[in-house]
């Protein structure tokens, strides 16, 4: 994947953060209607540095700081979208999107429908999500299922720098509102759940080769991250690497599907795989009950019932707030995933 599909051949190793910044840079350059804003994203460049340097390059009215008001940020973005801009906004942590719920659900997601297409909300809402950084319950959440239940929204979560940039560009160009979740634990390197091992930087990973220019990774398309024959693993974000580690450590030939777009979903890739393996494990970091894994399990049994040889397993965060000190007992690490693979194969 070091080469660019769109013919742009210059690639550089990038972290997720650099790739995301590059996506915004490319789009700010290409489209005068793209604007970037959020808490601390202007002068300072974002608490995770994703927008560093962009204000200097594109000026204060294209990239700017906002008041600490997630509802205001999204509400203003909806109005700008109605005008004709393409706002790309940052919610500092996914845990803080709640004050924007009404603007996301009742406004952005429904605007095209309720106005029969007169007004649209082509906005991209970036938010770092997930745990593994000792952030405690308000810096660790993965609220994707609260978005996938809302019709009219697209929900996307990349797992590597190449996809991060390509999916973010695709999201910015998309005319629907997109919730763009960034698993912050892998901002600087793929993380396989072994928190006691030294961090691996992105530069060691092939998907960190990122074209410098414009390209997209299409929405609604999953990637087979690791082909395999024994069991289908449906996952996304950080859990792709945890699932891979579990395959390595358990010796089980798992086919790991990185969903990338959570909703709308690439169901075909999923169904083809499960029909092949007959077994399915869903892995996500969010709490279990009514998590996105529930929808995946429901869909798989609907579409592959007669191919399934074992119950679909779900490996997820527990149904508790994300604790600070017990982080690794909470995090669904490789051991728990391996155990699920084994259970799926037991019968």
């Amino acid at each position, binding site marked *: 994947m070091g080469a660019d599909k769109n013919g742009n051949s210059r690639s550089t190793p990038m972290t997720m953060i650099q790739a995301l910044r590059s996506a915004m840079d490319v789009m700010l350059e290409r489209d005068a209607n793209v*604007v970037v804003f959020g808490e601390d994203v202007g002068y300072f460049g974002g608490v995770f540095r994703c927008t560093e340097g962009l204000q200097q390059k594109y000026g204060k009215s294209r990239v700017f700081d*906002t008041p600490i*008001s997630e509802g205001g940020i999204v*509400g203003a973005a909806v109005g*700008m979208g109605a005008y004709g801009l393409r706002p790309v906004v940052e919610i500092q942590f996914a845990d803080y999107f709640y004050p924007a719920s009404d*603007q996301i659900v009742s406004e952005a997601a429904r605007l095209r429908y309720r106005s029969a297409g007169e*007004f649209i909300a082509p906005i991209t809402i970036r938010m770092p999500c997930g745990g593994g950084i000792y952030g405690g319950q308000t810096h660790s959440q993965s609220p994707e299922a609260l978005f996938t239940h809302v019709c*009219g929204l697209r929900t996307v979560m990349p797992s590597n720098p190449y996809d991060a940039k390509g999916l973010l560009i695709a999201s910015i160009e998309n*005319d629907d509102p997109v919730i763009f979740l960034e698993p912050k634990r892998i901002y600087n390197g793929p993380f396989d759940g072994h928190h006691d091992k030294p961090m691996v930087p992105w530069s060691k990973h092939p998907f960190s080769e990122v074209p410098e220019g414009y390209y997209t990774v299409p929405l*609604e398309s999953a990637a087979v991250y690791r082909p395999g024959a024994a069991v289908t693993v449906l996952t996304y974000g950080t859990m792709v690497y945890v699932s891979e580690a579990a395959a390595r450590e358990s010796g089980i030939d798992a086919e790991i599907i990185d969903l990338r777009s959570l909703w709308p979903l690439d169901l075909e890739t999923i169904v083809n795989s499960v029909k092949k393996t007959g077994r399915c494990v869903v892995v996500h970091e969010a709490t279990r009950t009514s998590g996105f894994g529930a929808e995946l399990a429901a869909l798989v049994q609907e579409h592959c019932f007669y191919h399934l040889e074992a119950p679909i397993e779900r490996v997820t965060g527990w149904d508790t707030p994300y604790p600070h000190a017990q982080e690794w007992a909470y995090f669904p690490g490789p051991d728990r995933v391996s155990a699920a693979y084994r259970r799926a194969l037991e019968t």
Partner: protein
Amino acid sequence: MSHDEPLRLHIPEPTGRPGQHTDFSYLHLSPAGEVQRPAVDCQPAETSDLAFALIRVLDDDGRALGPWAPQIAPERVRAGMRAMMKTRIFDARMMIAQRQKKISFYMTSLGEEAIGTAHALALEEGDMCFPTYRQESLLMAREVPLVDLICQLLSNERDPLKGRQLPVMYSVRKAGFFSISGNLATQVIQAVGWGMASAIKGDTKIASGWIGDGATAEADFHNALVFAHVYQAPVIINVVNNQWAISTFQAIAGGEGTTFAARGVGSGIASLRVDGNDFLAVYAASRWAAERARSNLGPTLIEWVTYRAGAHSTSDDPSKYRPADDWAHFPLGDPIARLKQHLIGIGAWSEKEHEDTQKQLEAELAAAQKEAESYGSLADGHVHSAASMFEDVYKDMPEHLRRQRQQLGV
């Protein structure tokens, strides 16, 4: 000041309940013509006393007084008069249609017609309003085709919104009328965002956001004030204080002992409190605010003092919670009657012309209604297809919606 006295909870009450007469002195009216008119480029703090006074132009005899009396051609005022009358007739007819079960739900703007009408005349083409469900007068002033509106109300096959929205939740982009949300208060911060976008692009268009007294309690109103102030957005924030929010009096929304305009000043926004039943005052204040916004001088908040003369909606019965004849005693009167008196006073209108206009508008509306009804209604099942229900959720219909549409067999 003994500390041993127990605390008690204060619950605001209106000054009149069914069977009583409301004491309207809480409104603190200023006489017509008395309030100063600061320069358009004044500092927000200079409007502090305007937020507690009441800008009025028309006195009890229909004379236009004081510094706020606007420069406006009589022809424009007559157009405004027609639009107000049209709004009232429209509302009255649609109420009847609702009672006849031709339309499923309705909300009138009875008593508030001056506000949207004069405001629309004070804006320019291309400016965008982000209205609530009680600004049909904006549409009348902008001469939106009546048939389209009535088809929306009938939810029929020609409803431009494809039957998706409750009646009155219009969306008329070409008339600068943003899609109405059923969730209160969301649209004002959107108006601010729209205005910010106009400023980002170096455009000359401004936005105008609308909210009721009751809905100002919603947190989104705060977002609108904060963003409008911080970015000096070219926007007018209109608070229509019609004294009621369904069954709750404006004091329950925070109007007791202060005004909604005062909120604006506190947030660093120039703010006016205006007689919303005085067409000329509405026009003048709207012009002032629009000029300010368009000249890069920032936002203005205007509290329009008026009265919701009718029920909240066709689901409501206000005689349960307020005196049945309350409007008759409301000191700011009827906006149509007041403008009529003024126009006749300056020789630009007559009883005869009024009657003729009334008849002509009745006829125009009857014709429009007839045509719209010929396209069916929700009641008779002539609605947009079930298949259309799956469209516009996304720009392109994803696989799962195609599957669901198929499952429905449409």
